[in-house]
């Protein structure tokens, strides 16, 4: 957006349009895989206050239908998911966090802070094996499993959301690099036939 000379600020504000982190980069189809951006809705980082872990988990269960996830795990409910996001942290994806949680945990709105993509297709773990130092084969990394790990030197969150489908998150500023690296890996594995 450019600000027109002399235009009232209110007019200029009207021209603001929301741009998703991977706008213009996705979707991609290479080999048998599809790479698509996931519209995330709200993202809220939930960090329990000391001693409030159990009360928080009960409150989450009551208002969002999902308890606080164990390390390396995630929960999915209608239109919402809750993934373990590191030591004493979970990320609520979809709806805004309920106010009832505020006394029990630090709630940080990180919407727009992360790029979120979905890699889907048989053997998607072979593509990720080029980039991630984790065993993501289905017999090891099952549906609902989630990991904080690195993806080609980027801090990432990887969740197995469905059979043959991974959700991958990196900081928004790394969206273009993420798409580039995934595209290269998809092409490389596809070329092997």
């Amino acid at each position, binding site marked *: 957006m450019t600000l027109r000379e002399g235009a009232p600020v209110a007019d200029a504000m009207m021209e603001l349009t929301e741009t998703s982190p991977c706008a213009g980069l996705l979707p991609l189809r290479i080999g048998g895989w599809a790479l698509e951006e996931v519209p995330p809705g709200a993202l809220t980082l939930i960090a329990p206050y000391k001693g409030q872990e159990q009360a928080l988990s009960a409150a989450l269960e009551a208002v969002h239908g999902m308890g606080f996830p164990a*390390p390396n795990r995630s929960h999915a409910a209608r239109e919402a998911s809750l993934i373990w996001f*590191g*030591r004493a*942290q979970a990320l609520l994806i979809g709806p805004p966090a309920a106010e009832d949680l505020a006394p029990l945990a630090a709630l940080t709105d990180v919407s727009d802070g992360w790029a979120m993509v979905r890699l889907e297709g048989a053997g998607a773990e072979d593509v990720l094996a080029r980039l991630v*130092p984790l065993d993501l084969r289905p017999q090891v990394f099952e549906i609902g499993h989630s*990991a904080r790990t690195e993806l080609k030197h980027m*801090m990432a969150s990887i969740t197995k959301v469905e059979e043959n489908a991974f959700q991958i998150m990196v900081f928004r500023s790394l969206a273009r690099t993420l798409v580039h690296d995934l595209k290269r890996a998809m092409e490389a594995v596809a070329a092997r036939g």
Partner: protein
Amino acid sequence: MRICCPLCGARDRREYSYRGAALPLPDLAADVEVWHAHVHLRQNPAGPLEELWQHEMGCGAWLKVTRNTATHEILAVTLAEEACA
């Protein structure tokens, strides 16, 4: 070299950052010589050593790791928050 994060499980060394020797902190009012020793003086043993590592590319937790400096064998790992409790 792999370190078994108590939260994430066994992970490659590249996910971790070295944060120095795991030492008890001197009293803030301690003598300058005590602080000098804390900051600068190390035994540098060839053998087991207690160190701090951060699972920086993973869960972010600080870990107290006992590593054999001669063999890189990892002898023990605990969350630093528990080690200090």
